[in-house]
Structures are given as C-alpha cells and as structure tokens.
C-alpha cells in the first residue's frame, strides 16, 4: 500500500496499480473537497439567494422554462437557460435589437380566464407585477393568478423596511402552518414600504440609481405567458375535463385552492411560483 508498509514492492505493476488508485482517490476526494470549499465560500459570500434560485430554476420542467420570445412568437422554440434573467441574456439582447418596437405598441387590457392584465404593469415570471411609480419607486404585487392561488394560503411574511431584495431572490413568503411559499422578488432594490392584500400591493422598493427592468414581461408577451401558466396549472391540477374545472364559466375561481382541498397544494404552489 505504502512504501514503508510491510509487503510493499516496487514492481512496475504494483506501482502502476497503486498510482491509478491514488489518482482516483485524489480525484474523488479532491473534487468533493473542492465542492465543500466552494459551498463554504458560497455561504460566507452571501450568494445563497442566487444559488437557491439557480437550484430552483434548474429543476423546473422545461415546459415552465419557455423563453419569453416564444410567447411573443419571435422564435419557435427556446428554453431559458439563464434563470429568467434577460438582462444578461445574449438571445434576449439579440432579439430586442431587432424587435424593439413591438412591445411598446401594446396598450390594451386583456383578461385571460377572467384574469386582468394591467397594461401599465410589468410582470415577473414568478407571478408578480411591478409598477413604476412616479417617485421612481417600484410597487410590487401578486398577479391575479397568484392572488387566486394564494387566496387562503395564510399570512404574508413581508421583509422589513430597509432590507434589500434581489432579482429572483426571495421576495416574501406566505406561511400557512408548517408550510411556506416563497414569492420571487422581481426587482433589485431596497424595501421602502410594505403593504398587504388589502393595500393592493405588497412591497414598495427603491431600485436605486440603475434600475434595469428588461427582464420583466410586458406588453404582448404577458397574455400568452399567462395563458401558458394557466395551462401549466391545469396540468398540475390534473384537469382532464371530467373532474376538475379551473374556470367557472371561463373565469378562474377566486379561491382555487379552497375548491380542491384534496390536491397537494404545497407542491402545486411551489411549481407555480417557480420553487421546485
């Protein structure tokens, strides 16, 4: 085994065999060690939110990861590989360069399945809307789909005023007993005010100097996205036409969860809110 252990010989075969063995052991433990060190660094450097989103995003089914440009019909098929962060996406910047005007022209309000899409709001894929206020702060709220899903899901746990949010980090939570649902933060910035369901918004955020909101959906992208999301929800609910009906006369029920208590809502909510 080792040169000073009884029975060791310097025969070629022996040396080759043991060298390979030690290499393998070194690779296994080395890479494991590297993983440990990296994890430690991740913990200390506060990259945790980023990682959490990365992990969550990684596990999303491809269906849920469809590129926004597929919704707008600009490309045929594309699965997002960038964690829905279009700000650093090459595909996005490339496409935007060509079709810049398309989104801007959209003004109308539409309501798929009775869900009203506000034309002055930008939508995040985590089912939040962002409205830029006149004082440059951003108001954040749940989109109608999420609002209906979370209708009876307990209390919102909102961050303290003054804390910082990161795009795709945890925005706030809904806690219901032991389970907790995370709502993604759509923007970077400092929380300046908190609201609630009754206030019509949840957070007000000061994005600071350079607020880049390119990653949010707006205009014509929103409708197909929302349609797709409803479809996704139907799949999750196992809707097959004979049992569960999401819509009552084409309009989504106000409190979907309460209507189907037998389903694993924890899982469905996690899926819908991009928390795998």
């Amino acid at each position: 085994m080792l040169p000073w252990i009884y029975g060791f010989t310097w025969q070629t075969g022996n040396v080759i065999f043991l060298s390979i063995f030690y290499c393998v052991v070194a690779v296994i433990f080395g890479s494991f060690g590297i993983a440990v060190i990296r994890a430690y660094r991740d913990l200390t450097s506060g990259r945790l939110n980023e990682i959490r989103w990365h992990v969550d995003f990684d596990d999303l089914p491809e269906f849920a990861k469809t590129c926004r440009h597929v919704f707008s019909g600009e490309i045929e098929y594309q699965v997002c590989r960038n964690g829905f962060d279009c700000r650093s996406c090459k595909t996005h910047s490339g496409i935007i360069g060509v079709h810049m005007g398309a989104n801007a022209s959209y003004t109308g309000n539409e309501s798929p399945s009775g869900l009203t899409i506000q034309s002055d709001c930008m939508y995040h894929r985590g089912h939040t809307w962002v409205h830029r206020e006149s004082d440059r702060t951003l108001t954040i709220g749940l989109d109608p789909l999420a609002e209906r899903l979370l209708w009876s899901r307990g209390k919102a746990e909102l961050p303290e005023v003054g804390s910082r949010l990161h795009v795709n980090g945890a925005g706030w939570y809904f806690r219901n007993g032991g389970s907790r649902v995370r709502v993604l933060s759509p923007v970077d910035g400092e929380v300046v005010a908190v609201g609630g369901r009754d206030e019509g918004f949840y957070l007000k955020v000061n994005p600071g100097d350079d607020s880049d909101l390119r990653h949010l959906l707006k205009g014509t992208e929103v409708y197909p996205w929302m349609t797709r999301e409803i479809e996704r929800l139907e799949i999750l609910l196992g809707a097959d036409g004979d049992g569960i009906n999401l819509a009552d006369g084409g309009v989504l029920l106000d409190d979907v969860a309460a209507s189907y208590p037998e389903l694993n809502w924890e899982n469905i909510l996690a899926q819908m809110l991009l928390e795998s």
Partner: protein
Amino acid sequence: MSHTISRRDWLKLVGGSAIGFVFTPIPWKILDESAKWTQSSSFPYGRHREAHLQSDGRISFRYTTCTLCPMACGVRVRCAADGGRGSLEAVGMTGTPGHPIGGGSLCAMGLAGHFLRYHPDRVGNPVKRTIDKRRFAPVPYDEAISNVVLAISASGNGSVAILDSHPDRTISYVYRDFLGKLKNGIYVIPPSCDSMPTTVTDRSLNTGGLEFGYDLINSRTIVSFGTPILDGWGTQGQFGSISEARRHRGQDKLRLIQIEPIHSRTAQLADEWIPVRPGTEYAFALAMAHVMVHEKLCDIDRLRRDSKDFDGLAGNSFVRLIERFSPKCVAEMTGIPADRIAAAAKETVTRRPSVVVFGGNPASGPFRPEEQAAFMGLNILLGSIGTRGGLVARRELPGPFPASHGSDNPGHLAVKTQLADVPDGSIGVLIIDGADSGSIVPWQAIQRKLSADRHLVVSLTSYLAGNSVNADYILPSPAYLEMSGDVPTPPSAPFASYSLASRVFPGPATAVSPLDFVKRTSAALSVRLGYRYQSYDMESLLRKRAEKIFSRGIGRVFNAETGENEKLTALSLSQFWNMLSGGGCWIDEVPAKLPTTRFAFLDSESRTPVNITSPKRADSGEIALMPVGTRGIGTAAQSNPIMSKLNRESDLRMPAGTVSLNPVTGEAAGLKDGVKARVLTTAGSMTVKVRFDRSAMPGTILAAVGDLTGGSERTNGETQDSILQICKIENDSTWRITNAAIEPA
C-alpha cells in the same frame, strides 16, 4: 489588531493539524501496527488461544506401548513441559522407530491416542446408573465397592464373571486368581477378530493349549476369509511388512486372495477378490479342499497318517464331506464359477507357503465354529500347520505367578472361557475390564449370558464407550498413558512377545486401578489372593513377570531409546527391566515345537459335517445384513473427537448409522442414494442413511457399526443406536449375517 485567539483560529489550528497529521508517517504506522496486532491477537476470535500450551520449548520423548488394542505397538510420546502448570503434556504420538511389533508406525487411533486423556466421554468419578436407567449419577467409590461385594456375596446361583477383552496381561492373571478363589468365578474372553482361541486350535489340531499365530510375512499366498488384513488387522509392523512383501520380493511376491461378500478395504486392495455370497465362505473353502484332494495336489498319505478323520473311516470323514462340495455345486452356492474356485485352489497350493486366515472383521465378529473348522481343514491340507509362512505355534509367555506354566492351572487360576461357552442366563455379577480387543461385541451377546432376574454389571473403564454404557456401575480406571500395565503377545502374532505399558502421566486421583479394585473387593469378601500379592502394587507384579521372562533366557530385547536389539542373555535383569519400562519389547523368535498330534477335520464330538444354512438369496426379497467396521470400532479410541477427520469430515470411513448398498439392490427397494431408509430384521428395525456403492454385492447391506465420532460438544452419556442391536445373535454367539429387509423411511 487583536491578539486574542478566536474559536475560529482554534478550529483552523485543529483542522490544519489534522490534515498535516495525515502526511506524517504516524497514522500509517499506527495502521500498520494495528494490522499486525489483528494478525496476532486473538481478539475477538479464537477463544482457545490462551489455552494453548505455554511451552517453554523443552521437548522430550517418552517411550511406551499402546494399549488401545492388543496389538502392542511401540509408542513414542512427544512431551512438552507446560511452563504454566509445571506439568508434562503429550503433544504428539508416533510409533517407536524400529519397534519389532509396531514397525515404527501407528494406526489412526494410536496417532491421536494422547488426546484420549481429555476425551469428552471420559468418566471422572465413580457413577451409578440412575433408577430411570437413562443416566448416571456420581456415587462414592466405597459405596460402589460395598454394593458390588454385596452382589457377589448374594449371587448364589449366578456366577461372578470378569470379561477381559485383552487376556494374558498381568492384571488378567490377577483376575483369574481372584475368580479362582471364588466358588462361582468365571473368567470370560469375548470373541475378537484377531484371536484364534485355543478352543479352535485344540479341537482341530489337538495341540493341547498351544497358542497359534499367522506367519504371514513369510507366506507367498494368503487366503483370507473376510479378514481385514490390509485394514488394521494384525500388528502395524506386520502390515508394513506385508505392504513391502506385496510390492517387492520378485517371484516370492506376496499374493493376497480375499474371499468375502463385502467389498471391504482389503477386498479392494487384494490381488484377487472372490466375492462369495454371504455365509458361503466355508463352502468355498470346502470346494478348494475338494479340488486339492481330487486333483491330488496335497500329500494325501501324510494327511491320512496325521489326521483322525481324513478319509476311510466308516462314518463321516473329511473326504466324504467334501464330496458334496464339488466346485460345480459350490459355484451354485457361492456365485463363483467352478473354474475360478479351482484356479484359486491350485494357486494356493502351488504358491506355497500358503496360509488361510479367518479372523473376521472387527464388527461382524468371528466365524462360526463349524466354519472355522472348515478353514482350519484347508490349512491342514495345505500343510501350513507349524510351518514357516503358515500357522505357527508360539512359545509360552510366562505369567507373573510361579505355578502358572504349561497350560492354565485350574487349581489356582480360573480357566479362560470363551463368551460363547458361558451358559445363557448364568452370570450374576459381570465385571467388564476396560481394555479393548479392537473388535466389537454386541451387548445382546453379553446380555443373554446375564442372569435374567438379578444381575449387576460393573465396568472398570475410563470412558463411557462401548459396552460400558450398559453397566450399572462405572468405576473409572486410569486412562491410556496413565496406567501401568503390560502388553502380552498380540493374538495373531507368530511369536511370543512382551512389552510394558509404562505410565507416562499421573492419572486423576478419582481413578482406581483394576488391581486396587480386585484387592479391595477380595478384602471385603475375605478372599485371600494367592502369592501374597495383596501387598504388591502393579509395578512389583510386572517386575515379577519380567523376572520370569528373564529367567527363560530366550529371545531378544528391543531398546526403544537406541532402536537396537540385544539378545536377552546379554543383559542383566535390571537392564532388561529398564529396557522394558523404557518402552522396549521382548520378542521370542522361535516358534514352539508342535507335539506329534492327530489333526481333526470334523467336529470331534458330533462328528457331523458342518451344517450351515446360508441366508436366502437376494431375489427372494431377503437381503443379507452384514455389519462392517474397522479396528477399535465402538471404543473410546475410535470415538476420539479427532477421528471425525475420517468418519465425518471426509468420507473415508462410513459413519455409524449408514448402510451401503449396490444401486441395483437399493433401487429395487425403492431407495435413492443419500436417503434415509429403514432396515428391518427379526430383532427389530433401525433408521439408517443409505449410500449407494456400485462395488457392493447386490443383495447385501453393509452396515457401519460404532459410535459417531464425538464432537467437542458431545455430552457425556449420550448413547446411540447401533446396527448391532438389530443383528441376530446366533446360539454360538456369532452375528455375522442377519436376514433383513430395507424400505424407504
């Protein structure tokens, strides 16, 4: 900048040290050392390691004589001093190199003899059979003796018998003296495959008590009727010589013709195996005689002159008898073609010196008297009586007492009685000596001699083995290597010999020697033993006997230490004694002169021809059940735990409870190899394991006899069924063949 050491720094230090530590030789050395430790430590295995002898390395050799059977092999005991206990322990056994009887080798039993002191079946204290007859309970020695004495005094109409499987020892003379002093004492010798009792030789040869042995080594042709010549029969030295003589000696190469139905080890290895049907050996012998007489291959005139009943007489004569046993006729009986019978006869007679051996095997016992007469007749025809390479008479080995020379002296010593000659139901008190003859005797054969209403059986054995398990009292005697004794001439040996079985190790205090038993019993009975030896110990008696041998001034003496032989006359008495007690051996080299006697072919009293019904043929549904076993079967030496190597851990020996059948016979009975089956006889039935052996004669069942080898966890007193229990014991106390049936269990 703070100089305080934070917890973090500590962790760093510890972690760093741990990593650095791995790159020092220390952990690896620790691993290596622990590897070595686990290689040498007994933990957690090997709980006997501590018990391993704490030898100080001093090895010494002690020489003595094996007493596990009467074959008198010289034994070299390898002894090591046990530093822990300060005692000497035997750590190995070999034959004494150059020993004239043992030839320097030992049999398997003998090689493991040193383990016998710790045999799991060893009896430590005197024990008495409990009321329920199933177990033994300890009993004080004095109480046991007084009960035995009471039984002897009360045995009004029953006799007091001592069963001695190894006669002619000094203790045998003591027994005979003691019994001779009792009005109803008889001295009984059980049958053995080795011995040729004087009852047989006297009847056929009229030699007046002379004892005979076989001079096999000088023969050119051995005709053996069922005698396991190559499987432990006779002395080890003789076996070695036979091995040599069968391979070398050119023209004089020894040929062995084995005649028996059993595909025994000897039959397998013999030059020729003649598989006669069970029970027809005598017919084969008579047919051989027929050929010899009819073809005038023997000296007819001399036979007429030397014998009483060869031919011509008005009544029955041998010639008249063998008329009926023509090869053609016997071919029918034995299943051997006539020409093969004739060829065997011719070969035997032309390749002289020839000898006919008829010991029988240790499990199946001797042949019936009539059969023995037929075999003896063949020896007479061959002119093998008293000739080199034939049946030779031994010069007498003196006993320890003054007046006992010539034939047995009825005035002083009880006569030797064969078990078969003891009337049934006549024994009131039976004392079984612990020595083994090497052959087994079924308990039923002994039991039928016991008084039906009241009897007491006392065993002077060291082990709960063999027939001792049937005793009412077991009075443990010192075990092998712990008891002083002597070993007279082996029963089948051609020359007289004498060795001492010196004590090598002290025996336990609870063991009482047979001599002490006799002394105490006789004292309690107020019987005065002869020759004032009441005050003698064994060693003095042995010395007396040695003196008497010395005074004969004949023979040579083997010195175990040097391996040399010296003429007795060249030695002083004390030198002689020292040589004997040092594991040496006195051996006579000259046969006794035969008196000019008249041979008798036929039974002298009834003058009738042999009349034996052979078992029915296999095709009639009856099968011949024949017990088989090797030397020492049923004794503690064979049930030595280490003998499991032969019986259980290999298939070298058929273990007890197993029978072997020809597949044809087995399949006809609806059996398969390895299954359990039931053997039924008139005496009962027994469940056995079946082994198919295509070498076995169809229509026979070979049944292994004896104990299953005791494992280390064997419990004391556990008895097993033996196939002998269902063998039919004939009126002449033989049990060779039993008609049986076998069926799936």
